[in-house]
């Protein structure tokens, strides 16, 4: 959050790209690409989330402490998901 006022144009550009990405993710979902489907769906979702965070939530113009908090929360989510999955993936071994 900063005093920096984001020009209107940026908002509309971001909005349209979000719309396009939504359309793409739905379209891609109809093709049978095996495991690639999930990877693609997730990477599109991550880019959409990144756009919202950087521009709509002004993190791009925010002090680095805010960026640290955002990165930290996603890192902790990753810790929760990845180490627990290390149990489930290795159950058969």
């Amino acid at each position, binding site marked *: *959050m900063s*005093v920096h*006022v*984001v020009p*209107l144009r940026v*908002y*509309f550009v971001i*909005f349209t790209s*979000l*719309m396009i990405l*939504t359309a793409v*993710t*739905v379209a891609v*979902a*109809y*093709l*049978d*690409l095996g495991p690639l*489907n*999930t990877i693609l*769906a*997730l990477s*599109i*979702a991550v880019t*959409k*989330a990144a756009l*919202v*965070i950087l*521009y*709509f*939530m002004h993190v791009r113009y*925010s*002090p680095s*402490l*805010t960026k640290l*908090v*955002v990165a*930290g*929360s*996603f890192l*902790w*989510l990753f810790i*929760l*998901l990845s180490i*627990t*999955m290390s149990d*489930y*993936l290795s159950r058969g071994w």
Partner: protein
Amino acid sequence: MSDTPSAAHPAHLAHHFDTVEQQRESSSLGMWVFLAQEVMFFGGLFLAYLVYRSSYPAAFAEASHHLDVVLGGINTVILIASSLTMALAVYYAQTGKRNLLVLFLLATMLLGLAFLGIKAVEYHHKYVDKLIPGVAFSYPGPNAQHAQLFFSLYFAMTGMHALHMIIGFGLLIWLVNDARKGRFTPEYHSHIEIFGLYWHFVDIVWIFLFPLLYLIGLHDAAGGGH
């Protein structure tokens, strides 16, 4: 943003802060730390989803056919639009245009309401198809137990997300009549910014929910819908 030349202690500055700058940064950091906590809150749900989808991929893909991709898609568009209107509301709060601020806050409320409406319709469809997990769950496909697991997760995740939307809607009502009374000026509008962060967060949660719940079964079966 020039500091108000009036008394060294402008009206809206709380007693325990030294400068307006410090107060605004504190409230923004506070909100971001709260959102980090929310990420972990939804993280527990995503963990359950990840674990069960990796154990029963076929059942999940097959069960997700019973979700209406069209309604889900419309909801995604609505929610992203509401993110846009919220961002514009913040913009007009920063530039001090009071009635545009009120207008876009109302637009955000409207879109939020539309989202919840569609959600209610979807829940009703599940009720009609007897797909609500628990006692009255009947599922035509081969592995009904794992499908019930999918619907348990579906209701837990979308239900918790809808609850956050309702909380957001309540806060919006409070913000709108504050904005109408002209309480927010270019120097002091952190309430709007803070709420904007919360609203965008709720939108981001849906951005992940939509593909993970609605789009995982489309490729193999004959296509979406029932």
